[in-house]
């Protein structure tokens, strides 16, 4: 399992260090009346886990997380999460580039997509209400409220959401759409009031 490169060849100076650029140039106006903020979460490592004939997602979840995982559910705590929001696929989020040893038997299921997705944090007291207004789903619905993760449309953007608290919602979006999404967020804030 190749880790994202953190060692360099032929480093001669600090200037040679490879800099991982953020996906967006967005900064939320902190003076917004709504108190809502949107920030890009710093370096994240993400893997797409595809089910296969040899291994299924439940086996992966049991082995690596020690728990069963049903469709629509989320496992994990802190900065490590496993989101099962596709029938045959799950998304693994980590704060470190290396995966635990227990995942080695499942290496054929994993593909690094760390740079393909951008994670944003939507914060503020009205974050959940804001989300409910602009997404096609009904996040206050009991089941979604319990599972705390969701894949839906936010405006015209396809997003994957997960949260522990209603005032801190994490949004995963394709990197190429991230800047446009952030601009759209600011555009909506002007209407939110």
């Amino acid at each position: 399992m190749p880790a994202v490169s953190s060692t360099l060849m032929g480093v001669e100076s600090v200037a040679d260090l490879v800099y991982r650029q953020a996906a967006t140039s967005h900064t939320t106006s902190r003076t917004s009346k709504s108190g809502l903020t949107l920030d890009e979460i710093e370096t994240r490592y993400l893997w797409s886990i595809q089910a296969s004939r040899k291994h299924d997602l439940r086996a992966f979840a049991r082995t690596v997380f020690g728990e069963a995982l049903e469709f629509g559910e989320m496992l994990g705590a802190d900065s490590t999460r496993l989101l099962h929001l596709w029938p045959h696929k799950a998304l693994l989020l980590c704060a470190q580039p290396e995966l635990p040893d227990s995942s080695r038997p499942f290496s054929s299921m994993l593909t690094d997509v760390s740079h393909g997705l951008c994670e944003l944090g939507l914060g503020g007291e009205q974050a959940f209400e804001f989300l409910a207004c602009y997404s096609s789903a009904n996040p206050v619905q009991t089941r979604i409220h319990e599972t705390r993760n969701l894949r839906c449309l936010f405006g015209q953007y396809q997003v994957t959401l997960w949260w522990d608290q209603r005032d801190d919602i994490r949004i995963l979006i394709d990197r190429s759409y991230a800047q446009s999404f952030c601009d759209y967020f600011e555009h909506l804030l002007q209407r939110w009031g």
Partner: protein
Amino acid sequence: MQKRRLASGGIIDRDEKLYFGFNGRQYEGYAGDSLASALLANDLSLIARSIRYHRPRGILSAGLEEPNALVNCADQHGVFVPNLKATEVKLTQGLEARSQNCWPDVTLDIGALLQRVSALLSAGFYYKTFMWPQQWWHRVYEKLIRRAAGQGRVSTGTDLKRYDRRNAHCDLLIIGSGPAGLGAALAAVAPATNAEISIMLLEQDHVAGGSTLWERCEIDAMPARQWREQALASLAQKPNIRIMCGTLAFGQYDHGQVRAIQRVAASVDSISWQIRAKRLLLATGATENPLVFPTNDRPGIMLASAVRHYIHRYAVVPGRRALLAITDADEAGLTHEALESAGIEIVATLQPGEHIVATYGLQHLSAVGVINKSGQGRRIRCDLLCVSAGWNPNAQLLAQLGAQLDFEPSTGSLLPPAQAGITLTSGACRGLSAMQDCMLDGRLQAQQAIAQIKQQTVADIELPEIVRCASVTSSKPVLSDVFHDGRGQAFVDLQNDVTRADLEQAVSEGYDHVELAKRYTTTGMGTDQGKTSWVNAIREMTRITGQESSMLGHTTFRPPCSPVSIGALVGADVNRHMAPLRQTPFHRDFADSACVFQTSGDWLYSRYFPLADESMEQAIRREVLAVRSTVGCVDMSTLGKIDIKGGDALEFLTRIYCNNLDGLEQGRLRYALMLREDGILFDDGTVSQLGPQHYLVTTTTANSAAVWRSMNKLAQLRWPSLDVQLTSVSDHWASLAIAGPKARALLAALNPDFDVEREHFPYASVRQGSLGGIDCRVFSVSFSGELSYEINVPAGFASALYQRVLEGGVEFGITPYGLEALDVLRIEKGHLSVGSEIDGRTTPADLGLGKLVSTRKAFIGSSLLQRPALQQAGRLQLVGLTATDGQSQIPPAAHICEQTWQPGQSLRSQGKMSAAVSSPTLGYSIALALLENGQQRWGEKLWAVSPLTRQSVEVVVGASCFIDPDGSRVRG
């Protein structure tokens, strides 16, 4: 000075005076007024002119059903919005309104002359006129019609209003806050067991209450207005109900979806709501029907309920001398009482059997001619005529989903069912009239709805029985009381000036079906959508055709049930937010390099990189020549990239691509073609083997989503037994291609950890490693026709890569280039592009790639590729074209013909251009084209003909590859 304002009463704020303008003059009103009530209070009754005959028109009603009082109103940005009903415009400070459809003035309108030729303007007149002389159509008639037609004028300036679009979900959605709606809401929130039920209540008026605001009736033994106040106070205590006033529910759609527009006055001008509910309860009330009699359109003729509305709610006196022509005794009683309370003299009440035969007055009613059963006539002086021909339920939202409304002969109205699907009706909306009955009905229907909602989770909840409509005790209109004969135009549809004679004419000409008669006469096609006309139109057609009303049926109801602005529907998705825009990982660096961007599908793509003062053409030429002579770099990140793993990965790819992939080794790649099921070329790309059972596929930008969807569908549905995992890595990898004779040297300068020499890194191969510490995959593949390497790095390192390429490429003359130059390069090389050569009609053989199609395996499209139509001679085939004189510019998008073209001539097209460009490399114009039997016609001289640009250029047919036909440059 508000001459018609009562000294007291009304639900208006007399402490807040508002000043507004109408037709350039200033008037005053109060907070709580509508524009219509304020106009009436200022003794203004002539509001607009009718669309066809320019007849003077006043205010007929007090709500959305208003057909006459159409005005232009300026918004807060000073932009005039046309076709607003004065009855639904809330009076605000500084409001500016103007009459519509008149010139120069509503009191003196030139268009009124049309009344003198009204006989020529009957139903469907435009199908029979403006035909002779034929030359006059473009010169005269069309210009006149364009100026005269339509209702109102749209501003051509930018709409500065701020709109938004939001979602909401609830268990029970109640539409309407009259007695039935509020009764339903109270019943829904009352039980403690309903605390978890979420309820929304929408009211299109800016205050809740519906008819309780103006009717002097009693509910639960107290005045309706008092009951309303108590109800709203009680509902305000409940956290599970949300009341939204100023919110018009205009459409009902599948699966419990309702769309509504909320007028707001805060950070946004209006919000378009998309609401999903488990149950809908329509408490939308009913609309009063007018009588139909000669000249029934004069200002001063008003619906009886509207008169009561203006007196009780707005404390406005609509007239001084009133005549009542009301078919229902209860209605007549209520109106009588209201007029007396306002001090209005009641000069007469039309008795059963008495008919109105004429009305008098130039710009306002001054008298009414009445004839009794014995035929004796009299003229009654009056300035207010209160009319009513019964009520029709407002069930449009239910009918929009296809529910049939039944014509009820005893009441003369279109009645909805008590429930259709998840939508229940209540109160006046399902035919009840007494306010107490409406409130009780709302309560019962709400209980029914709640029980149904709960039954979805608790199966053994018993549903209450749906109560039948309470019996109606007062007399109801019969047909003869609604229509009065006499001389003069009797309008059935006031807004579109449709008369009884028009309907008779339509039926006599064969348009005897409601849908045909509607379109032929335009009945119900105005902004009021026939709310005060359609029932009368059905009644009239019943009389004319002799059919039963129930057999006649009604026309199709479609949203919106009242006009909504397009801006409100669009919401916030305007300008650059109209659609999501994708940026490549190199975007910020390119923006710093003065790149000119363009949208290409979803993407914001680098178009060209001009140096100071360069034109686009100069920049493109420089970029192309740089790639051909030294080295350039271009962003290829938009290509689709799909990671494929698994024991059956190769089998999966073999079934999808028409190429033979058997011999593909690790570290090699192959140009691959994907066909549709019907054998037509779908997409082209590359298949690279990265490791055992591990492949990477690239697709075109245009088809990346389609190929991804197709692969997933095949893997999940068609071949679920295959061991294959698909992952889209399109956004994970940034891709920068370096192309040109110096590309290899530049690659070496980037400090790769693998050998880049030709013998170790040949064409059509891939290397994985690092470039100066950045993990990478480098593909030796070319779209430009030069030696080229597509360097893929994780997207977060794109900027670092780009800076290194620029720094390392200085000694080689590195030149960034964009999509324009890339297109020129690929045309010179004869490479294919989706949308140009891969146009949904070509096969691999048509494009000279027939040899790539494997004959040893089955693949998607292999069967239908063999059908005769795709194998026969005469198919359009890819060729190259050059001008025979070596100088002329070949017109783009030209057709290929055997002769030159002259204006007015018809020629047979033998093919079409797919791409044309003035080649900087070659110094002359070249083109790619699809020509009948093209591959057998090399050397032939034909004509590239463009009637649009009126050009014909003689061309010679040849190979589609103009540069490096043997591929030596590509292989370095």
